[in-house]
């Protein structure tokens, strides 16, 4: 019970800060922006981890889902939904972005029935490239020049709320029996099926949930940067997210948070180095992989992430056999 209170208080404090920081300019705009990108990166890393860490596939298409979410939500706020100050407009657009991305997640999930591993990786890669070049060919959304004039609706409280919600939902999923089905597929697909896991349905769910949140992150991103173009969502973007996930540790939500944070902070700290930053970042990644191939957290997670009902209730004395 105690733990619940601590987490609740921390979240409350975070929410208060996310409101107070921009309101009273407690941080300079640059740091504020960094914090907001951090939130988005956490959503991206956690959701990709669901596929690459928990399901054990190697998706390189996450930026594609993000693009779908970004464009869908931006189209809504720019073109469709009235500019009136209605409070539901922005969350609705973000939700719609997530749903659009989730639908495309279905497109990738279906090939996953038949292939695994490297072949599926290519399917996701091809998917991301298709999204990018499709967007380049749609003039209504600016084609290769991109979509301008998006309102800056992504405020710090919104990003904080969405980040907490995303992490919470994904955590809930992996600590439930449907979520354990995802883990079982990673460990041994045949054995999982023989334990009654409907592997097709589980894969669809995992892909749809992951791409939903990638879409949410895309929507937040679009309304933060206020400009999106197909180029933003190319392979390099996916690589960044991959780095966050593997830096933190696959199969660990805490790892994704740590990885996204380290990535974002390091990137900003090294900024004065100019081009060399982009040499040093991957160098650090390579060194990390060489000395800690499973990332910072490995497969472990913060103990306080685990819901209390999840823990076994055991009689006080145990007797090993």
């Amino acid at each position, binding site marked *: 019970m105690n733990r619940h209170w601590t987490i609740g208080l921390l979240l409350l404090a975070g929410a208060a800060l996310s409101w107070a920081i921009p309101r009273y300019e407690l941080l300079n705009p640059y740091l504020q922006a960094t914090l907001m990108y951090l939130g988005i990166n956490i959503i991206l890393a956690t959701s990709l981890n669901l596929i690459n860490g928990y399901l054990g596939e190697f998706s390189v298409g996450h930026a594609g889902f993000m693009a779908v979410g970004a464009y869908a939500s931006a189209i809504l706020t720019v073109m469709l939904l009235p500019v009136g100050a209605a409070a539901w407009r922005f969350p609705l657009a973000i939700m719609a972005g997530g749903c659009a991305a989730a639908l495309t997640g279905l497109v990738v999930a279906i090939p996953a029935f038949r292939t695994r591993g490297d072949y599926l990786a290519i399917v996701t890669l091809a998917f991301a*490239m298709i999204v990018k070049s499709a967007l380049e060919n749609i003039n209504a959304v600016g084609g290769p020049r991109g979509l301008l004039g998006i309102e800056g609706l992504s405020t710090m409280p919104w990003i904080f709320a969405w980040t907490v919600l995303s992490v919470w939902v994904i955590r809930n999923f992996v600590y439930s029996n449907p979520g354990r089905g995802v883990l079982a597929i990673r460990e041994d697909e045949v054995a999982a099926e023989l334990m009654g896991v409907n592997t097709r349905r589980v894969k669809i769910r995992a892909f749809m949930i992951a791409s939903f949140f990638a879409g949410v992150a895309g929507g937040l991103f679009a309304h933060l940067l206020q400009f999106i173009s197909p180029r933003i969502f190319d392979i390099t973007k996916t690589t960044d997210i991959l780095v966050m996930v593997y830096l933190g540790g696959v199969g660990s939500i805490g790892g994704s948070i740590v990885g996204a944070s380290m990535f974002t902070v390091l990137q900003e700290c090294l900024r004065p180095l100019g081009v060399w930053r982009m040499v040093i970042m991957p160098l650090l990644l390579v060194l990390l*992989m060489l000395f800690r191939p499973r990332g910072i957290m490995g497969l472990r997670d913060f103990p306080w992430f685990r819901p209390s009902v999840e823990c076994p209730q055991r009689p006080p004395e145990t007797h090993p056999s």
Partner: protein
Amino acid sequence: MAYLFQQILNALQLGSIYALIALGYTMVYGIMTMINFAHGDIFMVGAFLCFVAATVLGLSFIPALLFSMLGCALLGVVIERLAYKPLREAPRVSAVITALGVGLMLEHLTLVFSPYPRHVPALWSSASWHVGGVTLSSLQVLIIVLSVLLMVFLDWLVRRTMLGLAIRAISWDRTVAAIMGVPVDAVISLTFAIGASLGGAAGFLYALAYPVIDPYMGVIVGWKAFIAAVVGGIGNIRGAMLGGFILGAVEILVAAFLPSTYRDLIAFALLFILLICKPYGILGQPRPQKV
């Protein structure tokens, strides 16, 4: 009709470059079941070595080609020894992520030394002939012929020599191969060297054909070549060549008959559909899994 023929020629040129790069992916995959995501950037380094050879060193065609190939081979071996070898027993994705990191490092190191795109001077005084409305440049012929020669040589190497046998033994079972006396480390390094030198040759030829080069040129070309390798059936040498030519053909023909912005879209959509219908590529086969 002449137009079509011209496009086929262009397709062959682009396809042979894709095929050369795809071979590097496929060889490394075949022996290590590892996707060497740095390979596209080795291709880029090959192009820049061509630039260095032509401008700084003032080499002529053949020495410059060898310079590119050997330089890349060396680079491939160094990368393998420093970055991949320590990870042989680690989870497979660790090596893949490392490869992504190495690729990024190569790109940005090149960017440090060459912040803006470079123009590669002509190393080959190209003549062109006109045959019935088709323009045939000697450079184009050279690229195609050279690539095909390299591929034939590689195919022979893998199918007919002890080295090829050793490669196949290692790809079947590394531990058993070691027990049977195959010098595993040396063969793996040599495989990387061969794959990288083909990538280097591709970079060299690419730089001659499309002479403006920049540090990011390897990203998109590399990924595409990788897809070509998969379409052919990754791990399969002939599949990689086939995949490369198919990709080249699709890209050129789409660009020839449709607005060029549709090129990537249609090429990737076709590949996507092909992969869904034939998940293991055209010539590839799933490794049987017993329960």
